[in-house]
C-alpha cells in the first residue's frame, strides 16, 4: 500500500490542464469542505449498521479521490465500498487519517507545490 503514491502527479496535472489551475484549486477546497460530511456519514452508517448508506458514502469518497488522483485514499474508500461494513471502526480511522493527509497534499499541489 505504501508503494502507492499519495497523489498521482499525472492525474492531478491532467485535471489542471483540462479544467484550469484556478478551477482545480477551488475544486480541492470544495472537496475539503465536503469530505468531512462524507466521513461523518460513513461513521454514522457504520454505527447504525446501515450497509447501503455506508457503501454510498464510501463510493462518493472513492469517486472524488480518484478524480484528484488521491490514489491511496481512493483505494481505502474502494475497499470499504466493496467490502461492506467492517467489524470495527479501525478502517474508518485509517481512512480519516489518509483523508487529512490527502487534502493537505492536494492543497499544496493546487498552490503549485509538489504535495504528495
Amino acid at each position, binding site marked *: 500500500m505504501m508503494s502507492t503514491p499519495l497523489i498521482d502527479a499525472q492525474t492531478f496535472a491532467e485535471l489542471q490542464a483540462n479544467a484550469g489551475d484556478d478551477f482545480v484549486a477551488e475544486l480541492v477546497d470544495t*472537496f475539503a469542505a465536503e469530505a468531512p460530511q462524507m466521513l461523518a456519514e460513513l461513521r454514522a452508517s457504520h454505527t447504525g449498521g446501515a450497509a447501503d448508506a455506508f457503501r454510498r458514502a464510501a463510493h*462518493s469518497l472513492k*469517486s*472524488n479521490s*480518484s478524480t484528484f488522483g488521491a490514489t491511496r485514499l481512493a483505494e481505502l474508500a474502494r475497499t470499504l465500498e466493496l467490502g461492506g461494513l467492517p467489524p470495527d471502526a479501525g478502517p474508518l480511522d485509517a481512512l480519516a487519517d489518509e483523508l487529512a493527509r490527502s487534502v493537505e497534499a492536494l492543497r499544496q499541489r493546487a498552490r503549485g507545490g509538489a504535495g504528495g
Partner: protein
Amino acid sequence: MAERGARLLVADDNKVNRLLLGRTLQLQGHQVESADNGRVALEMLKRGGFDLLLLDLEMPELDGFALLELIAADPALREVPVIVTSSLEGVAHVARCIELGAEDYLHKPVNPVLLKARVGSSLEKKRLRDQQKALVERFATSAVAQDVAASGFALGGKRVTATVMFTDIRGFTTLVEQQGPEETIELLNTWYTLMFDAIGGQGGVVNQMIGDGLMAIFGAPMPLPEAAGGAPLAAVRAALDMQELVTLFNAERTAAGQAPIAIGIGIATGDVIAGYTGTQQRATYTCVGDTVNLAARLEGHTKLAGRTVLLDAATQAALGGRVGTAALGAVALKGKQQTVEVFALG
C-alpha cells in the same frame, strides 16, 4: 442545434463531480445546468429545452436507475438522450442502464476527450432523430404522423392501392438562369408552400422533394374515405387546387414584373409497395412500383401533350364523371413497352 452550444443537464449529488463535469462541458462549448438529485433533475427535464442529460446513478431522493425508468415511460422526456456517468463498478450496472434506455455509459473519473466524443455523438444522434421527426411533421400529413406514432418506425413495406402524383415547375432551368439565387430559393419556397397546402388539404402526403419537383401519395398509409371519392378524387382535387394557386401566384409575379411559372402534374392509381424506407435513425414514407413510374412518366408527358394535368385510366375511371376529363388516346410513354391510355383534366 449544433454540437457546440447545446443545453445540457448534469445530475449528480456529489458537488465535486457536479462542478467538474459542468466545467468540462462548458469548456467544450456547452451550456450547463445542474441538479443535485434525481427528483430535481426530473422537474428540470419536464420544463423542457435540454438536449442531453448526464446522469449519475447513486443519488438521494430518486436515483439514476429510477430516473431512467421514468424517462423511458414518458414520450416527451424520452427524446432527451442520457449518458450515464458513474464510478459504480461491474458490467451489470452498465447493462442495466443501457436496457433502461441510456445512450452511453462513462466511468468516473470521466476522461474529457472521451466525454467530448460521446456527448458529440449523442447530440448528433439526437439531431438526426429531431430531423426525422421534423420530416414526418413537415413532409407528411397528420395521418402519417399518427401511423408512425401508432406503429413506430418499422422499416418495410406492404402492397396497397394508392394514387401517386408527380409535379414540377416547367422550364425551371431557364428560370434559374434568368434570376438570382435568392429569387430562385424564394420562388421554390413559395411554390412548395402552395403545393403542400393543396396536397395536404386533400389528405395527400408529400414524401419527396426533388429540386423543383415533388412526389405525393394519396390513400396511404391511411386510406382516404371512399364516400368522398377515395384517393383518386382527392388527388385530382388537389391538382385542381394546385392549378388555382399557381394562377393566383402568377398574378402576383406578373404584377412584380416576374415571369409566370407553368407546372405539370401526372397522376396514376394502382398497386404500390408502400412503407418506411431509410434507416432506423432517419426514414421516410415512400411508395415504389409501376404506378409510381407511370405517374412520373405522365408528368413528364404534360409538356408534349400541351396539358397541365394528365391522368391514367384507373384514376379517370375512379372519378366516375365527377370531374371533367378528355381522352387523349393511347400514348407511348418513355420506359413503357405498351401504350397507355391517357386522360387530361379539364
